[in-house]
């Protein structure tokens, strides 16, 4: 059983999502639900940053939850970006083609500057 802890922070109306651990089949549904609920909240965020500093692994199922999050954000008109990717997570995003449809920033400050 994998463990993924996800915490949320809000900075100037922008929600920063911090997944920590492994995003695999066991964790994917919960992570996806967190993203969807946050985007559907009555107090819609100005933007969403997935800060991947502590995300160590993304599987095929985990990647789908990112895709659903990106889709929900676009439907809601909320800019959706990722930042601080580890080499292994970046490789998953690059090989799968996810990086072609998602905006990536080196770190949270750069992502916030973009959405601010």
């Amino acid at each position, binding site marked *: 059983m994998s463990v993924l802890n996800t915490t949320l922070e809000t900075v100037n109306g922008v929600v920063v999502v911090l997944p920590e651990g492994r995003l695999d089949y066991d964790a994917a549904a919960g992570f996806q639900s967190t993203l969807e609920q946050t985007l559907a909240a009555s107090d819609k965020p100005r933007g969403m940053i997935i800060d991947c500093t502590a995300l160590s692994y993304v*599987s*095929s199922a985990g990647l789908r939850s990112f895709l659903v999050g990106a*889709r929900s954000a676009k439907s809601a008109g909320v800019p959706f970006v990722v930042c601080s990717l580890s080499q292994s997570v970046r490789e998953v995003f690059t090989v*799968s*083609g996810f990086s072609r449809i998602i905006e990536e920033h080196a770190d949270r400050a750069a992502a916030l500057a973009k959405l601010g």
Partner: protein
Amino acid sequence: MISLAEELALLAIEDDGAVAYTAGQAGFGMALLGACLVDLNAQGRLDADLTAVHILSRAPTGDPMLDLVLGEMGGETLLSVEQWVLQLAPQVPKLVQLALGALVKRGILAQKESRFLWVLKERRYPVMDGREQKEAKLRIMSTLLGDDVPTPHDTVLVGLARAGGLLEGFLSAQEIHRLESRIGEVGGIDLVVKGVEAAIREDQAARARAMMLPMY
């Protein structure tokens, strides 16, 4: 609701009920295997990353295609999606029959035997209820013509239809050329699809190498 693998097989049925010639090619078979792996992933039987497929449960799904694939994925050695697709390729004829059988059972296809050139037996699968096939084609078109982020299902459907040579069944060469960039952008944003594409490339390379072997 039909499975992704059945949906892919349905796209290989032409208007006159003939099975498209592409269905006899290695690329289609590997795409069909990929669809089974994606379905098994969705049902929590396996997960995949860039290096390996991880079996999570061997509990039968009740779907003969998926259970056939899952049953063949034995052993302790971890293999990548690409390696599994190449290893499972001999199961493709059985999977195609199971997919067509499932679609007949659902009343989506009929099964008709006829004679070709008065002698050769030919089996056709006329579409009885065109709704599912039309929906699959429309979903692909809407993904390619829109600018939305695709759903996980639709990106896999586009990616596997492209890998299996099925887009040519309902899009002209000109349309495919025009949509090439969008197909590349939204088709197959999925690790299983990328593994299927790698397996197809490896299979084609192996065939090319075999052709180059000296005859004497």
